[in-house]
């Protein structure tokens, strides 16, 4: 059994929070560059150019890419042969608190009813999963809510099948218009139960942008939905063109024989994600 120091977890989360806000990963930068190169609308091409400039300024000057530095969503994959020598959740929350304060990030978390800001950006949303091995993998996904608010979930009848899935997902993304800051990455969870589908949709966003699903039929469905969305021509920020979405990522899980849950979690073009293995 390998022992992991909770102080190391806190430090890692703090550093991930700051880095995620200011430095986009190569996967999303490559996707934005490719979008710029294939963009047919001159205005949208101009805006994509501007977004690349923005990421460059953010990285060089350590200014957040977007002022919505998000509610911190953290996936913790803990190896069965590893043990944290303290409270993992407390260590993560403390890392978020330190990262948002020391990194000059925005405190965007409040009580849902009184709307009083906690002023620490905590609590973060933590998902713990036990996996093989003796390490702790921490994935940080600071989630902006312009895109999060455009997400949705449908309990489709199994008879809806693939055409029903394509229609639900594409209509949701198109109806969102420019609200979620397109070009978006679309996380889709199909199957499981009500809450499992939502979690799968979020987890789908951890995959490098544009990397197809392992299952061939799922990858084909990703391509089909992406094509339908981009054919609508809403484009970058609703300004027209062929880049409303950069990618569709689908995760699937077996469902009840009576059920076809489909969850859609939309991610903005400022797709911030970082991970570390301890």
């Amino acid at each position, binding site marked *: 059994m390998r022992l992991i120091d909770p102080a190391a977890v806190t430090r890692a989360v703090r550093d991930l929070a700051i880095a995620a806000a200011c430095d986009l990963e190569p996967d999303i930068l490559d996707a934005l560059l490719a979008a710029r190169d294939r963009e047919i609308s001159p205005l949208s091409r*101009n805006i994509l150019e501007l977004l690349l*400039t923005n990421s460059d300024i953010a990285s060089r000057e350590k200014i*957040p890419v977007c*002022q919505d530095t998000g509610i911190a969503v953290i996936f913790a994959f803990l190896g069965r042969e590893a043990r944290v020598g303290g409270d993992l959740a407390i260590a993560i929350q403390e890392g978020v608190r330190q990262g948002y304060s020391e990194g*000059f990030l925005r405190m965007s978390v409040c009580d849902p009813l009184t709307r009083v800001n906690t002023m620490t950006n905590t609590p973060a949303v933590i998902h713990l999963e036990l996996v093989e091995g003796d390490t702790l993998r921490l994935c940080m996904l600071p989630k902006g809510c*312009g895109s999060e608010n455009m997400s949705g979930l449908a309990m489709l009848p199994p008879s809806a099948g693939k055409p029903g899935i394509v229609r639900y997902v594409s209509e949701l993304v198109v109806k969102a218009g420019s609200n979620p800051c397109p070009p978006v990455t679309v996380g889709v969870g199909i199957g499981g139960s009500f809450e499992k589908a939502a979690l799968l949709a979020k987890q789908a966003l951890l995959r490098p942008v544009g990397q197809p699903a392992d299952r061939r039929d799922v990858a084909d469905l990703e391509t089909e939905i992406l094509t339908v969305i981009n054919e609508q021509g809403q484009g970058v920020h609703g300004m027209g063109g062929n880049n409303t979405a950069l990618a569709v990522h689908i995760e699937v899980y077996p469902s009840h024989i009576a059920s076809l849950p489909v969850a859609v979690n939309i991610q903005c073009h400022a797709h911030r994600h970082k991970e570390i293995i301890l």
Partner: protein
Amino acid sequence: MSLLRYEPRFFADLVKVILPLTAETMAGLEAGDLVSLSGVLYTGRDQTHRRLCALLEQGEPLPVDLRGQLLYYVGPTPARPGQVIGAAGPTTSYRMDAYTPQLLALGLAATMGKGARSWAVRQAMRQEGAIYLATIGGAGALLSKCIKKSELVAFADAGPEALFRFEVEGFPAVVINDLAGRDYYEMVAAKQGS
């Protein structure tokens, strides 16, 4: 490792617009115009609006005279030492729709954020002679370069939702709703034949 080395470069051929807006300037703007804003504007988002409208309902004075002004929907990140402001891009405008007609009735001339407005807000804009602009969502670092001065005006306890006064220079935006009632998002959608 950086994949990119861009110099800040904005749109070409922007219509230069001075803030606060005059009736004449607004009349000359059309949906789809790319503009560059210079001058003074005020900021506010969800809680700012809630508080402003609560003051109006109680018959209390507002902390700032919004007549003729532009209200920018933004909740910036804090400035690092030596910076004017942190990232300061637009937030989604529809969340302000519930409050906007009240502020337009008061004489607010323009609003700026991202995304489409409700039918009620569009009608209120036509009635009051106001316009709506969108700027570039998710370009907070770049847009911060166009903000030359930032001053806290009210609601400090609301943190990022406080009301600020910004002095901007060359701030890029797109006119979405003009005085004639046109909506640029709708015009784009119509052009796609959808």
